[in-house]
């Protein structure tokens, strides 16, 4: 096993994989990478299967010192990653030597990036996942975000430096959604108001959800008897200001969900910074199906050798 020492932890650096699937009926939160598209690319670049865990980096990245040689894949937003001062672009992989320093300068675009290592990032595995569940304080690295002085353990496998054939972050300020499940509980113009946007993504956003500020959705029922919450669900609390539910959401909730972001646009949500605008477009199931198919097709494209 190879190790990396955390010199500075960055804004919020956690161990994440594709999340805890299938335990919602016990009240267990899904968790996992907020941008599963970028995570899957990082793992492919590192030579891993899709189930391996990686470091999820949020806007301001950590400083890491490599203690033993290893091989890494980096994907997602361009958050200014450098190795010993030399840029390491998103969508590429490379070998790392003992003594190398990974440092994140000013972020260029997007919000989240993933550092994967051949052989995976080690961490506490619970219910089939190494994802960190921050509210429950379990999983990943001691159930919490990385801190200065932590030692992260990764695999020691070597690999061939490569580059992804497409951008590994999908950036935009417009996401597509399907009406429902609870649009029937709202006034007939509620969905129209939601798509009339734009909304501001407020600084109260986190891994649980993106809290928005913009056109109020009026006349929403104050609360409903708790029911399961879909990923990307746009819930409307009594304030009328929507919250878009992300992977860190609770498995059930008590606010009605007016519409749900399509699965192909979940990675777009993960890359939108607080303070930016976000607008919604209602689409059909066919459009959602086609968009997802295109995303899966893109993830199947072969890597190109680096030089």
């Amino acid at each position, binding site marked *: 096993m190879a190790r990396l020492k955390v010199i500075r932890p960055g804004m919020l650096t956690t161990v994440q994989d594709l999340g805890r699937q299938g335990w919602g009926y016990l*009240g267990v939160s899904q968790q996992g990478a907020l941008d599963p598209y970028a995570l899957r690319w990082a793992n492919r670049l590192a030579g891993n299967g899709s189930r391996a865990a990686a470091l999820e980096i949020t806007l301001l990245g950590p400083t890491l010192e490599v203690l033993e040689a290893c091989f890494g894949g980096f994907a997602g937003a361009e958050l200014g990653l450098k190795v010993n001062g030399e840029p390491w672009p998103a969508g590429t992989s490379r070998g790392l030597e003992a003594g190398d320093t990974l440092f994140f300068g000013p972020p260029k675009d997007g919000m989240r990036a993933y550092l994967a290592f051949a052989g995976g990032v080690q961490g506490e595995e619970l*219910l089939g996942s190494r994802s960190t569940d921050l509210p*429950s*304080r*379990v999983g990943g690295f001691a159930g919490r975000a990385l801190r200065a002085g932590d030692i992260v353990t990764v695999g020691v496998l070597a690999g061939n430096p490569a580059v992804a054939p497409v951008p590994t972050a999908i950036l935009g300020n417009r996401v597509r959604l399907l009406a429902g499940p609870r649009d029937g509980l709202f006034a007939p113009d509620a969905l129209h108001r939601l798509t009339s946007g734009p909304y501001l993504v407020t600084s109260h956003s986190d891994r649980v959800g993106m809290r928005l500020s913009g056109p109020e959705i009026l006349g929403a029922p104050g609360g409903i008897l708790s029911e399961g919450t879909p*990923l990307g669900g746009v819930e409307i609390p009594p304030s009328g200001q929507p919250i878009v539910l992300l992977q860190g959401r609770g*498995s059930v909730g008590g606010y009605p969900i007016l519409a749900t972001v399509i699965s192909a646009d979940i990675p777009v949500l993960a890359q939108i910074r607080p303070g930016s605008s976000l607008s919604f477009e209602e689409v059909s199931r066919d459009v959602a199906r086609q968009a997802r198919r295109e995303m899966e097709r893109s993830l199947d494209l072969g890597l190109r050798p680096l030089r």
Partner: protein
Amino acid sequence: METPGRPGEAFAQVLDAGDEAFLLIFGERLDPEVNARVQAFADALRSAGIRGLRDVVPGYLSLLVTYDAATRDGDELREELVAVRPATGTIRPPRHHEIPVCYGGAYGPDLEDVATQTGLSPEEVVRLHAGRDYRVYCLGFSPGFPYAAELPRALRLPRRPTPRLKVPQGSVGIAGLQTGIYPLETSGGWHLLGRTPLAIFDWTASRPARILPGDSISFRPIGEEEFLRLEAAERQGAPRG
């Protein structure tokens, strides 16, 4: 209303919840009978061997069914869901759990306040809370947290105006018509009447949740001495009740 054997009649509606989930609606009002049908259908779905299903999450009146849109076509899956026959009688018989609770004092910091707000004595609050069986409609908020109902009318209060940042593990709370148990130390806005020494959720156990949706619970008042004794026994891994 339900005619067993006829497709799609276990639930009233299938609603789209994005392109990776359906919300099956079984009823509109709080009703133990509706929730029993939710749980029976959840059991039937889990054992139906449907390809590409990710999770089956019961709510009070509904079931969220999530799937992997990369491997399953939503329209085909919807047809399969409609064709699933609800189990006649639940596959897993519901269990009853008697939960020992040390009420009041440091264990239940809101007991006095609840008594004041409801115009009852603290003893009456405990007698009413502990004096009946509750149905566990679903789990959520935090791993293993049982949403149980219905609380006696005299005890129904809105949530606390400001949630606590730290509610100790095992705290037993009430809000509206619900009562519940905090399995882990988390934040929380319910009125805290007492604490149980029992472990409600164990991440590493083969069956992590002590209480499952569809089960019933009741509360048994205990003193501090018994609380400490049971807590020590739980730490040593006493067999699950």
